[in-house]
């Protein structure tokens, strides 16, 4: 039996899943990301450093701030500039609001309709009073989400996120994994390996010598659980979510927790925040810089090389979805194997639900 899902609706960007089942066994499964490439890394060469943030913001319609911030951090690293604590705080507030907006869009518009056996948020509108909760509080959203009926499934993969000792990391920190990686952004090329796949326009990134990884809200919760705001932590703890959580469907719960965390954190940041000039002049120089941050969908890496006039000579961007590519494909294989006796429609829905749980951004992954 062949199952061809030519496109997956309710995800960002274009992808297909092709499944081949023979004699009751999974023979082959491919995640084909057919999103057309726009060649950002190609045409960034020759552009000036101060255009880069505006340009890369257009890689993604859901997480422009993440691309912008990561590019700015990488360029700052290239010229050896350290922003003031005030600037860092402003960026944190922007990043947190970006993560919340992205998570809310993902939850209500993309992921949740499946759990109510509906096709879209429009159908949810008149029928479900649960949606009223979003008006009240993020807290209610999280409580509603944690009660949903999630498929019982475990995925074996390495969880990777940016972490730091002080805070639930977003823009600042080191690359950390559930299997012991602790490294600086500069060491990224030593740990990760990107390769081209014949059936996909998106490249696939793995941990050298080890294999797949998963990044995103569930990875951040797994690796920075203690630093999550206590309000969010207590709600997810009640349902037994504790590191190391291996059910990728729970990424949805992790996103709900991060929305609560984000609101509480922004309020903290804004307390005692005064109006003052934030502009700091910089001096352009030749350099090579990289940065990792946490975008809504996970770890985002930007790397730039520029000449003494500030013109970009080389650009490399690895997105959360490229990091999650193999882990998602492996997860799909395991999910199909575990449900191989189920009717075709059910297998398709389960696959779609897993893809959505990963919250991929295929436009980002190809860029």
């Amino acid at each position, binding site marked *: 039996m062949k199952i061809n899902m030519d*496109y997956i*609706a*309710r*995800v*960002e*960007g*274009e992808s297909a899943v092709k499944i081949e089942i023979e004699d009751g066994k999974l023979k082959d499964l491919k995640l084909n990301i057919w999103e*057309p*490439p*726009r*060649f950002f*890394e*190609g*045409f960034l*060469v*020759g*552009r*000036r450093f101060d*255009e880069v943030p*505006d*340009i890369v913001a*257009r*890689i*993604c*319609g*859901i997480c*422009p701030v993440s691309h912008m911030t990561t590019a700015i951090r990488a360029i700052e690293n290239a010229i050896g500039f350290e922003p003031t604590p005030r600037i860092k705080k402003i960026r944190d507030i922007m990043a947190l609001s970006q993560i919340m907006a992205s998570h809310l*869009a993902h939850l209500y*518009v*993309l992921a949740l*309709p499946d759990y109510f056996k509906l*096709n*879209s*948020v*429009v*159908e949810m509108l008149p029928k479900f009073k649960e949606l009223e909760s979003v008006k009240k509080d993020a807290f209610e959203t999280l409580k509603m989400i944690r009660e949903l009926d999630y498929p019982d499934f475990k995925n074996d993969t390495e969880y990777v996120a940016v972490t730091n000792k002080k805070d639930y990391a977003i823009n600042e920190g080191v690359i950390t994994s559930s299997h012991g990686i602790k490294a600086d952004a500069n060491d990224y090329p030593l740990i990760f390996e990107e390769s*081209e796949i*014949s*059936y996909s*326009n998106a490249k696939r990134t793995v941990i050298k010598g080890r294999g797949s990884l998963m990044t995103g809200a569930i990875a951040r919760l797994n690796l920075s659980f203690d630093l999550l705001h206590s309000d969010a932590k207590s709600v997810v703890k009640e349902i037994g979510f504790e590191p190391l959580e291996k059910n990728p469907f729970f990424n949805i719960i992790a996103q709900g927790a991060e929305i609560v965390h984000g609101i509480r954190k922004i309020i903290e940041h804004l307390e005692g925040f005064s109006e003052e000039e934030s502009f700091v002049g910089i001096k352009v120089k030749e350099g090579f810089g990289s940065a990792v941050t946490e975008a809504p969908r996970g770890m985002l890496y930007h790397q730039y090389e520029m000449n003494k006039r500030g013109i970009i000579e080389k650009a490399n961007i690895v997105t959360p979805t490229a990091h999650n590519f193999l882990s998602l494909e492996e997860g799909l294989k395991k999910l199909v194997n575990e449900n191989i006796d189920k009717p075709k429609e059910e297998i398709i829905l389960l696959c*779609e639900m897993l893809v959505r749980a990963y919250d991929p951004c295929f*436009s980002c992954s190809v860029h």
Partner: protein
Amino acid sequence: MKKRLGFFKFSCCTGCQFHFFYEQRYLLETLLNFDVVFSKILSSSGTPDGPFDVALIEGTVTEVWQVDELKRIREQSTLLFAIGSCAVSGGIPAIKATDPEIEIEKRVYKKLSSIHSIKPYAIDAYVKVDGYIRGCPPGERDLYEALTSVLTDKKPDFLHYSVCVECKLKGNTCVLVSYNVPCMGPVTNAGCGALCPSMNRACYSCFGPVKQANGSALAKKFKLMGLSKDDIIRKFTEFGAVTGEFRKAVEMMYED
């Protein structure tokens, strides 16, 4: 009967489609008067088959299959609107047209055999377009205008003036004249409410060129301000490098 609406994506970030559904402040009631027949991001039960009363197209055309698909949608739609800078003017993806394309492709992929990219163009290079909802992301006013015009069967009245007019309406100090920063406002279509100049930042033309903009005159002004040839060319190639208005300015710089 509700008007049938289809939303189609080509090469872009899906930001327009997201923005479209985000705009609930004004749009939710308007939107509920449409039957959204197809939008991949919104519903898993959609069908791409027409007929459509209105088709919204986001994204630049960069692959051959998109040309065929675009023509199919055109044939099946009463009205077809371009939404967002990519579809309207080529947007950011059109930067690729400024260098030999194979060079740019080789910088990204080692194996080019599975890459089938063509020169990026706005959608009106291939089909007749009934209206342009400009911006990156699209401006609220024109988006609302487009939808209400479909519902009321009238010709949409989009903004056809430059960002300068918006600055004047807001009483902004001109950043180009007063602060000597290279502002693209004079040649850029309005719709953003002069967002950047209101923050004392130069406009970078994310809404693309206003029709019949005199790009060459602004390029000359930038030159007098001391900008290098390359810097001026970059200004006119960030959004909508393939448009006639901006190409004229770039060609003038090369002839200079």
